[in-house]
């Protein structure tokens, strides 16, 4: 998409010159950034995943999904017979665009926005703060516009078909303005954050924010269709309340309503005014006030990172990782090597942002999914079968974590496994897996089990215990069946993720285990008797895993 963007920029160069940027430099920076995005396996674009060669097919695929979901949301607009009742569907549509943009900006582009690699490369060159800032905004906006366009393209067609081309075009413009507005709001969000917390903290905060966002959005997708069922809310022509003027998607919706109803009254004019004025005011505000400090803030990011790293390194050098981790590792491990691997895995899983980002949202999804499904109280949720199914969620999500355990950005440090005299690598693997079980699986499972017991009654306790051991068996089987790597020894992108195959096998195992469990519930005392069997089986498999030899391990 580099060429069309540059083409559009060339048409607009007068605008950039007018706001005080050097167009030649701006174009060069944007071009280079887009080129690099296309080549890099975009770590910063997280979910857009890895890609090789000179294409962006993953991004295209994501856009396809956005188009599809956007289309589903737009269908709501087809079913409304009456142009009076378009306000809510329109609001929904713009909310979709805006939340996609916000989510992308916060989760996937945070590293692009806070990227300090430009410091060494671009800042020593004669590039003004404004030019650099504009180039970065354009770089980000080009992705956002693509997202906004794909999210609203079906809506544009539907509106255009039903209410005429003018309405369609207005809708399109409003979608793009929504994207601009989100750029502004996110920028303000980051700058406010940066005022109050240091860079290192900021990355941490954003990391947790991403995790929460991921869970919220997942929950939102689950809940939204149920909210939409409340027909009354949609079909009734909405009375405008005062607080509607504080909800940006409603501005856009109101503005579009002017053409489709058609209506001109103070309320709608105010909506139109807000939707036109705010994005441009935001741009003006950013250009006027935020650019001046922009490069300075960037440099400070770099500077602050160092001393704080030093300050932290000193206390943590001598076992600041709480002493109870040491004690715990003494308790659950049997050899020094296993102990080392346990403590090592425990610490890294708590600190490596990428590991946290890849695993914690999954756990959150799992919990949200179970709770929502059980509340929904429909066929699946109320059947005596569901709680069993839910209990195995913990195992499934921790399997993802187990898979992540082999990966790290610091994979180069894995030379240490090669140079150290490790005869039995199985000890390292088992220590690492034990840490995962105790740190992630157990607490998550207790949470889940607590909820299940609370909702379905304490007589399910034997099931809970059996399911725990079965989850352990599933986890260890996954570890036994997949390629074994030393902990944190493989580059993130290097592993070909054959997730589909893994997913199928896991699904099969889950099915077998789940149905046998269900079968046992039908036999009196069946579950209780199965517990020791399951426990012994886990122990045998774990011993097997611990006997892993060097030949079975694949080094990155």
């Amino acid at each position, binding site marked *: 998409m580099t060429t069309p963007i540059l083409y559009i920029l060339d048409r607009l160069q007068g605008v950039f010159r007018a706001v005080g940027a*050097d167009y*030649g*430099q701006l*174009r*060069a*920076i944007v*071009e*280079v950034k887009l*080129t*690099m995005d296309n*080549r*890099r396996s975009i770590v910063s674009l997280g979910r857009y995943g890895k890609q090789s060669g000179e294409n962006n097919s993953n991004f295209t695929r994501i856009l396809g999904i956005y188009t599809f979901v956007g289309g589903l949301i737009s269908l709501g607009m087809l079913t409304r017979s009456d142009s009076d009742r378009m306000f809510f569907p329109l609001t929904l549509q713009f909310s979709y665009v805006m939340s996609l943009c916000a989510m992308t900006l916060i989760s996937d582009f945070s590293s692009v926005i806070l990227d300090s*690699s430009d*410091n*060494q*490369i*671009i*800042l*020593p*060159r*004669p*590039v*003004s703060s404004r030019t650099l800032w504009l180039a970065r905004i354009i770089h980000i906006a080009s992705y956002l516009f693509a997202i906004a366009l794909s999210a609203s393209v079906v809506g544009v067609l539907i509106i255009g078909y039903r209410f005429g081309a003018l309405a369609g075009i207005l809708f399109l413009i409003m979608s793009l303005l929504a994207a601009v507005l989100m750029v502004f709001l996110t920028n303000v969000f980051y700058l406010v954050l940066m005022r109050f917390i240091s860079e290192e903290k900021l990355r941490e905060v954003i990391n947790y924010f991403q995790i929460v966002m991921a869970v919220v959005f997942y929950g939102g997708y689950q809940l939204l269709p149920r909210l939409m069922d409340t027909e009354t809310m949609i079909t009734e022509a909405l009375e405008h309340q005062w607080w509607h003027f504080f909800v940006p998607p409603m501005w856009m919706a109101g503005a579009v309503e002017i053409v489709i109803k058609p209506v001109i009254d103070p309320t709608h004019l105010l909506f139109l005014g807000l939707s036109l004025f705010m994005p441009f005011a935001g741009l003006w505000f950013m250009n006027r006030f935020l650019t001046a400090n922009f490069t*300075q803030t960037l*440099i400070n990011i770099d*500077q*602050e990172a160092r*001393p704080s790293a030093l300050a932290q390194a000193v206390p943590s050098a001598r076992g600041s990782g709480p002493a109870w981790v040491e004690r715990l590792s003494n308790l659950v491990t049997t050899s020094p090597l296993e102990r080392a691997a346990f403590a090592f895995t425990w610490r890294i899983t708590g600190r490596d942002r990428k590991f946290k980002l890849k695993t914690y949202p999954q756990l959150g999804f799992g919990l949200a999914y179970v709770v929502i499904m059980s509340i929904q109280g429909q066929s699946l949720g109320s059947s005596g079968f569901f709680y069993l199914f839910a209990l195995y969620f913990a195992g499934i999500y921790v399997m993802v974590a187990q898979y992540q355990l082999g990966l790290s950005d610091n994979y180069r440090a894995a030379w240490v496994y090669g140079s150290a005299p490790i005869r039995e690598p199985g000890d390292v693997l088992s220590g690492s897996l034990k840490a995962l079980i105790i740190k992630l699986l157990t607490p998550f499972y207790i949470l889940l089990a607590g909820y299940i017991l609370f909702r379905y009654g304490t007589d399910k306790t034997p099931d809970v215990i059996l399911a725990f051991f079965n989850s352990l068996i599933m986890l260890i089987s996954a570890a036994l069946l997949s390629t074994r790597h030393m902990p944190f020894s493989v580059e993130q992108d290097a592993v070909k993720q054959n997730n589909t195959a893994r997913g199928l096998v896991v699904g099969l195992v889950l099915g077998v285990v789940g149905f046998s469990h269900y079968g046992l519930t039908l036999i009196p005392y069946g579950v209780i008797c199965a517990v020791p069997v399951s426990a012994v089986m886990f122990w045998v498999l774990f011993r097997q895993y611990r006997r892993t030899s060097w030949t079975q391990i694949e080094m990155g």
Partner: protein
Amino acid sequence: MLPGGTFLVSFVLNLTESYVTSSSVIELKDLQKHYGSTHVLKGIDLTVSAGQVVGYIGPNGAGKSTTLKILIGMLPDFTGEATVLGMDVRTQALDIKRRIGYVPENAALYDTLTPMEYLQFVGQLYELDNAHIERKSLDLLRLLQLADHANARMTTFSKGMRQKVLLISGLLHNPDVIFLDEPLSGLDANAVVLVKEIIRQLANSGKTIFYSSHIMDVVEKISDRIIIIAQGRIIADGTFAELQQQRPESLEQLFAELTGNDGQTMVAEEFIQALNL
């Protein structure tokens, strides 16, 4: 006094003034810099004239890179005065940047690009003509034996190869003053000799070179002037011969002594003892 006399005096004064500004390429007066509560530079005074090769050395964390960053206009929030080519670093940073070259440490470049693409990009930031950059880049890459790799992505490049590309990117616009942060790190022995010679000849053609380094024997050989800083202060300044006159050892020993790190032999002994425990 004749009215013409005043005119003449002020003319001569103007001349001297412009002579002073053009001959002292870098001027620092009581330069201080804080990062939060840490006092990194505690008053640096320095004048460098055109055509000098200045080696700026000091232990880790002494403030070398900070000084360089201030000089190239990346850190405007310092106290004291700093001018480069007679221009104030704080207010005329862009004009300064057009006429200086900077080669950062730790091989920071966009490594998914090819050398040609990267150099093209850097050239565009200096608003150079594309065809001109291309010709020049190819020539320079060829001279540093990177011609075969000119169109390969730099992800696979060794540190030395990256360093060469960085060096070219810092010199592409033919700057008057060149700031180099650890210019020789990662280069192989032949390349070190080549780069040393390039630095020498750049200085001969009237360019000023200001570089930081850890490799003492290189500093010894190519610097017209050596400045040693420790804990944010200049503790020695002069030609190698001058510094040697004070103490007739090698620069390495001198450096250790001045920066308060003598007795390395003793530390080494203790190190061995600790190992044997």
